[in-house]
């Protein structure tokens, strides 16, 4: 490799060749540039002696084995498949990871870094310094530049806070005070999470934010949310409701009127039914006698309905009307069984009326007897 590139030739592709032969060359070229950068960085006020860097570099020579030592700004395509490539790649990945971690931790702990009490910013810068000594490629150097931007922004903020006479607003203690107000229950907990050193442990009750919100309302002129007590209000529903009520009232009246009519009708039909039945039975009797004038009908033959006990009782009931009115006569025949026969003569009917009126017969008929 040494033959293919000179000390100042940064654009030729580098082979994997023996590293040792290049060693002193890249180191030498880096030395100047690196110390320049370091000094730029340190002019911000850290005041690190350049001498120590040289020492650092030499210590890390072994790590720089396969490095090409170019300026960070130029691009260097790395030839793949070099035998020492694996170790180098891993090493560079490690450096990149470390940078990213550092950047992340600075971003996460901004407030901590800004706090005038802590030296964390300085520590982070020192860590980056160390990392940078292992950097020889653009990718890592870009990360280093990113960190530099971050750190310098923080440095600027910190300087701003020092400049003015204002009392710095310490958001860390503010957060703690808020938690206290919200009713945090601080216990001796270990190992909450990775940031446990920057956050207090403790259990925050479920009404924490509600408590805070209640206090907050005193400082706002917020219009209370307006909600109708009975739900959202639309102007349409009352109208149909009235209409429905009116309609319901109308049929109601008709129904009521219909009811008495019905009742009346029913009562009439009851009476009519009875009378009708009576007449029907009388008609049957007369028909039967017309056909066979000499034989009175067995009472029970007439009234008993073999299929229905109730009907039988009804029949007896109807027949009794006929007897009462004198339209038929009930008498005992030779076997002492009651027979019934219609009364033919009108005069007889009239005469018997008063006489018959007083005779009453009580017939008991039970369900058992009927069945038989």
């Amino acid at each position: 490799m040494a033959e293919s590139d000179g000390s100042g030739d940064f654009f030729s592709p580098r082979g994997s060749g023996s590293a040792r032969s290049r060693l002193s060359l890249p180191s030498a070229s880096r030395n100047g540039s690196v110390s320049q950068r370091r000094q730029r960085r340190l002019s911000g006020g850290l005041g690190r002696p350049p001498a120590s860097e040289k020492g650092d570099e030499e210590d890390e020579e072994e790590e720089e084995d396969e490095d090409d030592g170019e300026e960070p700004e130029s691009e260097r395509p790395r030839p793949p498949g070099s035998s020492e490539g694996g170790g180098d790649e891993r090493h560079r990945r490690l450096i990149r990871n470390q940078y990213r971690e550092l950047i992340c931790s600075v971003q996460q702990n901004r407030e901590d870094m800004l706090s005038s009490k802590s030296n964390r910013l300085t520590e982070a810068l020192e860590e980056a310094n160390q990392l940078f000594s292992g950097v020889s490629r653009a990718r890592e150097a870009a990360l280093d530049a990113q960190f530099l931007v971050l750190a310098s922004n923080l440095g600027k903020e910190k300087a701003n806070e020092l400049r003015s006479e204002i009392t710095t607003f310490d958001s860390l203690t503010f957060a703690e005070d808020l938690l206290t107000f919200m009713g945090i229950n601080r216990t001796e907990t270990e190992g909450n999470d990775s940031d446990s050193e920057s956050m207090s442990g403790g259990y925050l009750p479920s009404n924490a934010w509600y408590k805070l919100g209640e206090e907050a309302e005193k400082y706002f002129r917020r219009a209370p949310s307006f909600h109708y007590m009975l739900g959202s209000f639309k102007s349409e529903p009352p109208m149909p409701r009235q209409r429905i009520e009116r309609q319901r009232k109308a049929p109601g009246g008709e129904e009521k009127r219909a009811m008495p009519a019905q009742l009346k009708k029913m009562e009439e039909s009851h009476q009519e039914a009875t009378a009708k039945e009576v007449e029907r039975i009388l008609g049957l009797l007369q028909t039967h006698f017309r056909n066979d004038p000499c034989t009175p009908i067995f009472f029970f033959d007439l009234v008993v309905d073999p299929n229905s006990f109730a009907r039988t009782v009804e029949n007896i009931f109807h027949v009794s009307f006929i007897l009462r009115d004198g339209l038929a006569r009930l008498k005992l025949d030779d076997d002492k069984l009651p027979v019934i026969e219609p009364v033919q003569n009108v005069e007889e009917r009239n005469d018997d009326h008063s006489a018959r009126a007083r005779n009453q017969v009580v017939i008991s008929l039970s369900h058992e007897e009927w069945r038989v």
Partner: protein
Amino acid sequence: MAGRRLPAAEIWGRFNGCWRHWMSQRKRSRGSGLTQGDDEDFSVVPTQSPSQVQRNLESRSQEEINRKVTELVQFLLVKDQKKIPIKRVDILKKVIREYKDVYSEIVNRAGRTLQQVFGLQMVEIDTKHHIYILTSTLPRVEGENLKQDIQTAKLGLLIVILSFIFMKGNSAKDSAVWEFLRRLRVHPGEKHEVFGDVKKLVMEEFVRQKYLEITPIPLTDPPEFNFQWGPRAAKETSKKDILSFVAKMQKKEPSFWISQYNEAKANT
């Protein structure tokens, strides 16, 4: 008009005054009468002098006008439920409609009703696009809020964000805000047991409600944002109030923070 000047009436009185002035300017340049706004163009409210308004009023029955006033009051109250600011365009399109010519009178009366019945006032937070919010004019009473719901909790989150922004000099980067909230167990990536999607709540809901103003910082990658107070926050609370809140939490006097104290004093 009532002899006693009410806040709502003042606001609208000033509004009317501007119109009158503009109207007189137009008269001078055009020498013609008044422009009647197009029926379909609800972005323009016709300019009217009080006498013109009076004449228009007389052409409508009191009943009609009062009905429109009631509708407007209801509209404003319902619209305010979600705390989304109300646009004048919507008011014109949905409530006023054909009564545009007496718009100012309707709004005046609605304002009076809001004040006298509800203790609320209509406040303009955007004079260019005419956007309004409702705020309370009554002093807050201790132990007044019997209804504690999610809105209460959200207000708690909001006040800490507003406090942080103010105490840090009226603007803060989103990374700073989220780091601060992290210390209160609120993480943008995690579902919070009270707030749910906190990032959405802060970046979308609070912004929509005009409590916060979040603007992207140019030339940042990944994009970073700048947090500031929104116009609603400015109207519903004040720097002085927020400083008092911070002072109470930290058990110190507000004057402990010199520059913030001076700023708050200058602001009232």
